[in-house]
Structures are given as C-alpha cells and as structure tokens.
C-alpha cells in the first residue's frame, strides 16, 4: 500500500519539479567545483577556543582541545583527518579527510574548524611570526 502511494506521488512529478531538482544539483556542483578546484594545501588552519593557528601538513598526530571537547587529528600523506572526538555529535570524525585548499572539517558543538590553507608561503610565515 505505502509503496503504491510513493509510486503515485512520484508519478506527479512535473517539469518544474525536475527543473528545481536540477537547479539544486547544479548549485551543489558549482559549490563542489569551487571547493575541489583548489590546489593541495601546505598547512591546516586550526580555529579552536577563539584562536587560529596553522599546522603544517607534515605527518603526525595532534590532540586538540576546544570548548572542553578533545579531537585527535591525524595528518598523513598531505591529508588531514579527525580520527577521534569525544563531542556528542562526532560528525567531524565522520567527515572525509581534507587535502585541498579551502576544504574544511567543522565541529559545531566545540566551535572547532580545520581549514586547509593554500599558500605555502603564508603558512611558513605564520609559523615564523
């Protein structure tokens, strides 16, 4: 019965519906292209507890604390991933690894964000400064 109902509901798709779906898909594609066109990054900008600092993309494991939650961040082979988190959502640990400039991993409850920085020069300046 319910499968039949779903079938009926699907049959009522009009052309504007398909256009609406295509529009959203196109927007998603544009956003994806914008993110994925960036070159691979040299460092990861970490924002935690209101401070922002860079982590160089060199292999290693870091433990970061933000708003009382702890995150294990693993950098290997030029990509950065959150492998462990004690925040209730743990969404950030489920997010895919980031490697290209502009890609982000965000944890909303802890207000933590990791963003790949594109400019190699800027990252090194950040460490020196």
């Amino acid at each position, binding site marked *: 019965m319910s499968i039949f*109902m*779903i079938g009926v*509901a*699907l049959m*009522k*798709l*009009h052309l*504007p*519906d*398909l*256009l*609406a*779906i295509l*529009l*959203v*898909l196109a*927007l*998603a*594609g*544009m*956003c*994806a292209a*914008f*993110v994925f066109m960036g070159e691979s990054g040299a460092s990861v900008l970490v*924002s935690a507890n209101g401070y922002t600092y860079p982590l160089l993309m060199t292999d290693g494991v870091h433990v970061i604390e933000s708003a009382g939650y702890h995150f294990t961040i693993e950098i290997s082979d030029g990509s950065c991933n959150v492998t462990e988190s004690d925040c209730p*959502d*743990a*969404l950030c640990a489920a997010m895919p690894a980031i490697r290209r400039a*502009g*890609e*982000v991993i*965000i944890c*909303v*409850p802890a*207000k933590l*964000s990791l*963003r790949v920085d594109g400019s190699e020069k800027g990252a090194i300046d950040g460490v020196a400064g």
Partner: protein
Amino acid sequence: MSQAKKITFLALLLGAALILSYVEALVPLGAFKIGLPNVAVLLICKLFSRRMGLLLSLARISLSTLLFGSVTAFAFSLGGGILAWILIALTLPFYGKISFIGISVLAAAAHNFGQTIAACFVFGSVAPLAMLWWLLLLAVPAGILTGMLAQIVCGRLTHLLNGGKNA
C-alpha cells in the same frame, strides 16, 4: 471552518512538527538537519495561509529549542526555517505546475543554505560555506522524501478538513 476547529488543527500540526523535530534530532547528522518539520509548514501554508505557516515554523523552532536544543541549534534552525519558509511562500502560488516534491527540494536546499549562513555567523568566518556542496546534494533526496510525505498527508488532511469520517 469554525475558529475552534482551525485552532485545534494548527495545534495538532504544531505537535506533529515538534515530534518531527525530535525524530530529526535522532538522525546522526550533527547540527545539520534534513528539514522534516517543513512537511508541517508546507501543509499549513497550503491548507491555511502562508502567514500561519511562518507562525508555525517560528513556534516550532522556539519550542524545540526549549525542549531539546541549544543556542547554536536555535540559530541554525532559525536560519534554515525562515529561508525554507520564504522558498515555500514564493513557490506555493505555482502549485499545480510544480508539485510538493519540487517545492520541498527547493525548501530543503534553502533550509541547508540558511543553516550554512547561520553557521558562518556562529563561527565568524566563511569556512562553513565549503560544506555547502554536500548539504545541497543532501537536500535533493531529503526534499523528495519530505515532498512525497507532504503529498500523501495533504490528501488525507484535506479529506479530514472537509469532514470526512474515515480519514
């Protein structure tokens, strides 16, 4: 329709929207939601008025924040809820040409866009925009699902509103 019947109906749908908020909170997608309560908002907009839809949306967001939300969740819901309502209000006059599915897909996309904008304000940076692409992608199946749900429920509610006995 009598005033009492109208109030009862709105209250019932507000209750349904609250339950949907709760169900949605159980889906492990973090603070980003697929917008199930938009089914109730869409139905109110269609069966009553768009103004009532906005009222229901705001009441639902306030109540769900009080019951099981946080301040950040409130900002997210508000951003998503209001933008979704705007899209529903703009596309509903074309109902007939466009079905609930199309409206829901647009509303879900607007919902996720609004949440991302709210996240930008919460974080004070544009970093959340980088997640927009998969949120918009997610909006398509979510919108189709909520649209089909709205289509099924709308038929039954119309029957009920017109005094049907076996609905």
